[in-house]
């Protein structure tokens, strides 16, 4: 039975050899040589150190293209023109599905024709040397961002390739991304990823790990997101990870977002072992964007304003072309600079908004209910508790495509635009907290002169792309 226990060294070696035989580039991985390579990197490319020592929020975009030279050019542009502090390398979909052969065909085609049929950088196919060429060519720390349920080979190659930060986790890269991968399966696979990061960490190369906070990106109640972050943080810490960046996706209500980021940091430090350095990352709005760059810039700036007040360690920026999919590098860079301008104008101002402590207190209480039920479900073991709590629905994520979560809980905004829970389903929560949510949603229903119903949920999902925060009945909409 899988439990929250550190993978023994011999088991680590066994799995490592096994997964490296899955694709020919796995052969080139040599742990000792990789440690030497990491030690040769200058201070300003050490991801964990740069992130943890920053005195204001660092900005990072999303970006990945198939060919190495294009990826170098893209990242240099985002660093120089977009003034990104931290850089990403987003991995293609085939690699996420462990389809390295298909990724190779896409990469070959991209190299032959110049057409980018892959939607990201196939790091496994580029291999250790390809990754190092990227690390060497770009003058800032780079993180691997993907969405891969089984990221073991990707981790082995990119860690050896010089990347020092790796996004994802067994819940956050399962529940929102895929239907059929079992949670037990992804936990087991991510234990290896974390254990490998821990092995580097033991040798002084601190690999930063970043659970994916936004989850399904759609009106996720803060406490659910935070509980998942705490679980993934704990699992990583068990395997020896010592630099963990917990994530949170903007819901669009300033008070709730600031409160959630404060709660995330506080609970992260409380629930994770003392030897872990906990940082936080704020994702600009991950839901639907307005089909209009001007309005999208407003959404992006709203995220920047929230970041200036909450002061997370890192901000993942969006571009004004979010609506249409992958942005041009110019638009990606514009999103960075718009965010930067707002943060730099606001961050020196003392902006203390009333009600943040109260909202933070509510979020913390909710999160503790969820953490308590996880521990109870597992008789103290987080892995078993997570599996059983998702199974019973005591832990749930709204709009989850995965069969591993019930996806029965439904959120809706209250009259102030804060995300509350409309349908609890089997989510474990104290009754007095449920009453608070109910009262807030009832207040909104009164304002709108309609019953609380799934219509609110549906209206809220589209609201920001339609130009509002709260999905009020259409009769009230003024243009």
């Amino acid at each position, binding site marked *: 039975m899988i439990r929250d226990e550190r993978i023994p060294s011999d088991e680590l070696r066994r799995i490592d050899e096994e997964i490296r035989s899955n694709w020919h580039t796995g052969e080139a991985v040599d742990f000792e040589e990789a440690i030497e390579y990491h030690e040769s990197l200058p201070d300003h490319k050490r991801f964990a150190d740069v992130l943890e020592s920053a005195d204001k929020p660092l900005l990072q975009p999303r970006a990945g293209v198939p060919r190495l030279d294009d990826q170098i050019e893209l990242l240099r542009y985002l660093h120089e023109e977009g003034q990104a502090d931290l850089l990403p390398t987003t991995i293609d979909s085939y690699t996420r599905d462990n389809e390295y052969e298909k990724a190779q065909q896409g990469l070959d085609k991209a190299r032959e024709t110049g057409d980018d049929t892959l939607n990201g950088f196939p790091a496994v196919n580029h291999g250790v040397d390809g990754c190092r060429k990227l690390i060497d060519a770009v003058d800032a720390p780079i993180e691997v961002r993907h969405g891969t349920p089984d990221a073991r080979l990707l981790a082995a190659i990119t860690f050896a390739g010089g990347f020092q930060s790796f996004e994802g986790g067994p819940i956050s890269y399962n529940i929102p*991304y*895929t*239907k*059929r991968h079992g949670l037990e399966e992804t936990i087991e696979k991510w234990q290896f990823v974390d254990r490998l990061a821990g092995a580097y960490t033991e040798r002084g190369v601190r690999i930063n790990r970043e659970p994916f906070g936004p989850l*399904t990106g*759609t009106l996720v109640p803060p406490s659910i997101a935070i509980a998942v972050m705490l679980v993934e943080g704990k699992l990583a810490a068990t395997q020896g990870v010592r630099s963990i960046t917990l994530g949170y996706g903007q819901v669009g209500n300033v008070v709730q977002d600031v409160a959630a980021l404060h709660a995330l940091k506080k609970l992260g430090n409380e629930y994770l072992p003392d030897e872990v350095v906990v940082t936080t990352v704020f994702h600009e709005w991950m839901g639907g964007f307005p089909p209009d760059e001007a309005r999208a810039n407003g959404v992006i700036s709203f995220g920047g304003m929230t970041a200036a007040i909450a002061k997370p360690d890192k901000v993942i920026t969006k571009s004004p072309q979010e609506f249409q999919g992958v942005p041009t590098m110019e638009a990606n860079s514009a999103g960075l600079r718009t965010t930067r301008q707002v943060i730099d104008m606001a961050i020196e101002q003392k902006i203390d908004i009333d009600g943040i402590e109260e909202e933070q207190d509510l979020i913390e209480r909710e999160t503790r209910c969820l953490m308590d039920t996880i521990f109870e479900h597992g008789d103290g073991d987080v892995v078993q508790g997570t599996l059983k709590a998702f199974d019973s629905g005591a832990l749930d994520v*709204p*709009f*989850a*495509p995965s*069969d591993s979560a019930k*996806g029965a809980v*439904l959120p809706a905004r209250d009259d102030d635009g804060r995300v509350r829970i409309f349908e609890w389903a089997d989510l474990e929560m104290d009754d007095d907290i449920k009453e608070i949510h109910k009262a807030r949603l009832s207040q909104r229903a009164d304002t709108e002169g309609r019953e609380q*119903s*799934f*219509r609110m*949920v*549906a209206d809220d*999902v589209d609201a920001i792309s339609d130009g509002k925060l709260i999905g009020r009945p259409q009769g009230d909409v003024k243009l």
Partner: protein
Amino acid sequence: MVFLMVLHTMSQTVVLGVIGSDAHVVGITILEQAFSAAGFDVVNLGVQTSQQEFAEAAVDHDADAVLVSSLYGHAEQDCQGFHQVLEAAGVDAVTYIGGNLAVGQDDFEQTRKTFRELGFDRVFDSETDSEEAIEALRQDLQITPTESERATISS
């Protein structure tokens, strides 16, 4: 009147799902809620549902309607042969499809034609409100006339 409508629709079963490798779950979740609230029995197959899974669920639940959602732009290839699969399994149900059905949706009438030819009884774009789909299904299943229809008749 509301009671009557619920009575009439009590036995009507709708199978919902997102076809192919598409993992967009929000729309189908809201459709599930809307059809349930309108009195239908809803079987939600969720995302990444194969043609075969649609057919099996329709048979198992004796579905009156099969509603297919697709938002990632590959609906046409995902639906090739879908109606043959349904027919082979002995499914006799109204079939709808809705969502972002083509990558460049410049001409929705062309898209509608394509999917009508594939065998779907109705084709909706991504802007369609769930109420509209419910209204259409009530008509197609000849459920008690709606207020607007009666208003038309009596005027």
